[in-house]
């Protein structure tokens, strides 16, 4: 079970909806295969298991894309997930490409910039597989990450279909248990895996349990920051999380277009993505 403060999820219904979502949306886009990057973490594990149920394990192409600093444990966990889901996994090292690119970038490279380079190289590998197979790229960003902006634009945020974007981290874990993701993958501390010992929660400065409980009330239940503080959330946490949600809105929207015409894309020209499918 998730912590008492976190939003509950009906995992049977969620599985059914998300599997149908992946199957229908891939089919209408003209694809019967899905490609996904497996990090060894719980989000990509859940997305891949759902993908396997949607199109069949033999039509899911999992790529493990380790960088120089990636922990061997992550790759071992990705293999466990592929075995549990019954789909094939290909390992492609992005280390040499990353080092070649980094050599031509301005020094010194901060850890965040290095992480962005890795995330964007993985995106290139996934979209190349998308064109080669062909297959649609399945995203793995959950609602907590999307709201907090904890992801790289044009990197791990890039995908065609995201089955996890309306699930908080704790709900992803609930769904992972339901789908039979190996326990070691569910229970380990989430990490971007850029250096030994890195964890998301240390990066963020708060726990996912705290973030999920707070975001669920702020976003889903539309409580105000004042109400959240009055209900017992620490004021600095409420301030920091609400600020992150606002500041990272740009990562959740397409780029801004300067309006000149009477019918501008995004304003008057608004069509469904599934237009004519």
């Amino acid at each position, binding site marked *: 079970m998730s912590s008492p403060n976190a939003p509950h999820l009906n995992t049977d*219904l969620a599985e059914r909806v998300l599997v149908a979502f992946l199957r229908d*949306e891939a089919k209408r886009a003209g694809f019967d295969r899905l490609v996904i990057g497996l990090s060894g973490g719980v989000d990509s594990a859940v997305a891949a298991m759902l993908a396997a149920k949607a199109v069949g394990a033999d039509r899911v192409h999992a790529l493990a894309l380790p960088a120089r600093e990636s922990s061997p444990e992550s790759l071992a966990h990705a293999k466990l997930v592929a075995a549990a889901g019954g789909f094939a996994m290909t390992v492609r090292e992005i280390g040499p490409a990353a080092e070649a690119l980094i050599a031509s970038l301005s020094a010194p490279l901060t850890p965040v910039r290095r992480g962005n380079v890795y995330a964007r190289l993985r995106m290139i590998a996934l979209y190349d597989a998308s064109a080669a197979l062909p297959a649609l790229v399945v995203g793995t960003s959950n609602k907590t990450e999307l709201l907090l902006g904890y992801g790289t634009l044009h990197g791990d945020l890039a995908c065609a279909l995201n089955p996890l974007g309306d699930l908080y981290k704790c709900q992803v874990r609930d769904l992972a248990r339901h789908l039979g993701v190996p326990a070691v993958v569910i229970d380990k501390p989430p990490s971007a895996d850029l250096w030994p010992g890195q964890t998301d929660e240390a990066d963020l400065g708060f726990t996912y349990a705290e973030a999920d409980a707070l975001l669920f009330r702020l976003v889903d239940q539309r409580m105000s920051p004042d109400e959240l503080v009055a209900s017992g959330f620490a004021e600095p946490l409420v301030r920091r999380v609400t600020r992150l949600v606002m500041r990272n809105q740009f990562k959740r929207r397409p780029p801004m277009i300067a309006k000149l015409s009477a019918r501008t894309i995004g304003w008057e020209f*608004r069509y469904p993505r*599934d*237009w*004519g499918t």
Partner: protein
Amino acid sequence: MKAALAQIAPKLADVAANLGIHADAVRRAAAAGASLVVFPELSLTGYVVMEAAPELAIALDSPQMKRLAEISKTAAIAVGFVEEAPGGRFFNSAAFLDRGDLLHVHRKVYLPSHGLFDETRHFAAGDRMRVFETRFGRIGMLICRDFWHLGPAYVLACQDLDVMCVLSASPGRGALGDDGRFQSTASVPLLGDTYARSFGCHVLHTNRAGVEEGVTFTGASEAYGPGGERLARAKDLEEDLAIVDIDPAARRAARLRMPFLKEERPHMILRELQRVLAERSAPQY
């Protein structure tokens, strides 16, 4: 007399393809003995049409409407479409066709425009709530949110309604509950049961299936008999076809048991509503 709830998943923004889907569903329903087939809201276009609404709109004298009239020679149909009306107005409409004739058009009155809904941006609101004569009895049509407001069903009932046909496209919201269904589906059975029981009518409610723009439509189309008994429930989420009996004798028996309409007081309701509205529009300060 049998009716079918055609719980289809229309192809978004493709009227030609959807005409084929309608013809196919009518053939299957007729083969199962149905002579009336109720389709979902905007069954000819899909729901999330956005700015494509005018491009998908059809007029009542269009070739597409003639094709629907042809289809209605196999079985009567209630279909959802974007109606292009004089004056540059577009409506979220439902047409009832039987034996090659267009018998009635209902224009959705209650256009939800909140949360994920944006209907007033694209559609003009209908302003009529009418019952019409058919070989199945006196039919009234409602489109999705029309059913959730209590007034429309009452106004139909006051016109001696026999069969309420509801065309819906209900997006699933809230996967938190324990019953394995979206939280947004909870009202429909309560309303269907209540209307059928209160007005001694049949309720035929077709809700669509399928996914559009990441939104999953909840299916679970339902039919209620005039005592409030559920006659059928189609599958959750997936396409399905449910066949039910809509026997006039069942309505007569239910109305003899519980003569709500005989004892209804619409003039009192009207008088009190007029008083309430007059008082509400008077200055409050």
